[in-house]
């Protein structure tokens, strides 16, 4: 295939296919992922090509999907679970927090549970309630899990394969409003361009650091472009992994720029943004010229879709955060 322009959705589909071709133990579980190919078509054609035993349409019960996925992992399989929408992961919360995240340490390493939980996340698609949430804070706080976000086709293609290869459980977030954005992917590259858990500086700058992940990366890149027109040089870091957090990458940038804005869709209160603010302030106390500014979803439930444009941090709100940080 070599270098190709493709969407995040297609990159994920191809990444899943590659992983399934490579390792017969990789299986998919989820609601409507078979004939339908999932409501977002991420698993399209995979059941046809790999059979019903490897692409499993499950009953409508998320705890059941997670619980059986863990059991399959204990038997040596590598289940990749699709949660249909962010807001439907909660029925599985107990299995994730009490079992998935803890089995390896409980058994002192005797068992591994390499389960990947794919969650289409975030807002901006005009959906009804429960279909637009950013709930990474819950999982980032749950040690024993790893939590990553892809934000572009290249990462989507590689990160899903890396997540599947990882022996730890991974919550794999996909920015659903970006599924159809395009980018270049070298499908024939011999290996992934970067480690699954490292941050990626997607734009260099000197005046201020913007830290973001998933759907906010595009917003921040756009903001940096607009700011550049006004003569401000912003560095944009796509964190990619929020647990573990590549705090060294953020710190290095902040040591250089002296200022940090964190942009996320999730409400700010007790969030990944809070943690980044706390850690960076601890580590860069003397180099910070302003407090860490968080630009985030409001501290409310996600609103009805007619209001979501006012809820989601957009380019203007990110720039407002940049202004506030630079005003110190």
């Amino acid at each position: 295939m070599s270098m190709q322009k493709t969407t995040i959705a297609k990159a994920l589909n191809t990444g899943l296919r590659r992983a399934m071709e490579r390792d017969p133990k990789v299986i998919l579980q989820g609601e409507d992922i078979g004939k339908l190919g999932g409501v977002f078509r991420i698993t399209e054609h995979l059941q046809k090509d790999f059979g019903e035993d490897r692409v499993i349409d499950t009953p409508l019960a998320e705890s059941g999907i997670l619980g059986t996925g863990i059991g399959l992992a204990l038997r040596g399989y590598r289940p990749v679970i699709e949660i249909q929408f962010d807001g439907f992961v909660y029925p599985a919360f107990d299995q994730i927090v009490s079992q998935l995240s803890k089995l390896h340490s409980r058994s002192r390493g005797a068992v591994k549970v390499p389960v990947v939980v794919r969650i289409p996340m975030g807002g901006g698609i005009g959906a009804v309630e429960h279909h637009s949430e950013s709930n990474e804070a819950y999982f980032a706080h749950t040690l024993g899990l790893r939590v990553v976000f892809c934000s572009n086709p290249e990462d989507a293609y590689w990160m899903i394969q890396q997540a599947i290869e990882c022996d730890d459980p991974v919550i794999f977030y996909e920015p659903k409003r970006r599924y159809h954005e395009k980018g270049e992917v070298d499908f024939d590259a011999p290996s992934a361009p970067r480690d699954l858990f490292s941050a990626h500086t997607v734009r260099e700058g000197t005046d201020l650091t913007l830290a973001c992940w998933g759907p906010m990366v595009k917003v921040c890149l756009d903001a940096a472009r607009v700011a550049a027109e006004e003569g401000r040089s912003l560095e944009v870091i796509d964190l990619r992994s929020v647990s573990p957090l590549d705090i060294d990458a953020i710190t290095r940038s902040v040591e250089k720029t002296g200022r940090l804005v964190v942009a996320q869709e999730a409400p700010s209160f007790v969030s990944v943004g809070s943690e980044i603010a706390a850690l960076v302030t601890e580590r860069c106390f003397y180099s910070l010229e302003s407090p860490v500014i968080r630009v985030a979803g409001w501290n409310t439930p996600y609103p009805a879709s007619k209001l979501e444009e006012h809820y989601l941090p957009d380019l203007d709100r990110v720039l407002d955060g940049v202004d506030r940080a630079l005003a110190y």
Partner: protein
Amino acid sequence: MSDTDVAASPSGGMDHHVSVDPAIVTEPRPAADGGPDMVQLLTPEGERVHHTEYDAIIDALSHDELRAFYRDLVLIRRVDQEATALQRQGELGLWASLLGQEAAQIGCGRAMRTQDHAFPGYREHGIAWTRGLDPMRLIAMYRGVDKGAWDPAEFGFHGYTIVIGNQSLIGTGYAMGIQRDGAVGTGDDQRDAAVIACMGDGATAQGDNNEAFVFAGVYNSPVVFFCQNNQWAISEPNARQTRAPIYKRADGFGFPGIRVDGNDVLASYAVTKTMLDRARSGDGPSLVEAYTYRMAAHTTSDDPTKYRVSAEVEIWKLRDPIARYKRWLMSEGIADHDYFEAIDREADELGEHVRTATVSMPDPDVGDIFDQVYVEPHQQVADDKATFTAYLESFEGQEVQA
């Protein structure tokens, strides 16, 4: 529910991985729509099937009441059609069609008394209609204006519930409240109350619904679990959700389960009424499986050609709930051509109203994001509202960037 089908590439309907039982496709047999245990009072051809247990209930209905059922069926179908069309025109974010399930819902809803309470999913437009809820309230939700913000107490009809299974437990708890209020088994028709808790066939797999069965059984609560088995949970057929017929689930939880022809408004009414009466009089919960069919896509975002064959839909067209009921009303002389025409006119007017009311619906206020998150003030929400207000004000007079 799936509200995005972004990559949907209509595959033309008939590909090699169809899942419908070939026997059903090649040879439509009336019995195949629910088996011998299914209560049916009206055949797809509109003939009354007599039933010792339920005949009296139907006989007790006046012609006015029987005609009103018809009106309900036709009007709610029209609302549904308009909403589907409005979604296609971009006026709604999504719509979940009840097409084909009108009889199940109208029968159920009309079996309820004023003091009863229904706990719906997201497709219960027919039950909502019988409770006097303006369909525009449903449309407002699917338009994204609000999240279904009516007052349940006003209608005995609670908020639409999207997370599968949640409402059954909540309804069971409500029924426990009815018990504690002494509103069960008093014999007072104005007082004794019961709950309808709705679920789909797919929903029966969810832990919450099974826990609801446990709680209702243990406490003998006045709740009727009303399961509309429309054969599909998005793309998954019944066989992916349960190995046994749904109505048989109840027995193992200690209460009766019954399968009724969900395309037969008389049967749905009679069976639900019987079970509601039972609940109100203190005899406890029950499970009604209304055997029906989702004639439309799962939602306006869904593409059913990916997973089911049109032949299956064709078979179910022959079992249409409105056509059979109309035939029966006519053959019994309960309603005539003029009546049907009048209803059609009313439907046209309603459709017109839905269209204009939708496009003229005002957008919500941004304050809605922050207001009513809590009953009492909350520091962090208040801070955010203040921040946002100041932020908005900062744009006043100036053009918005980018």
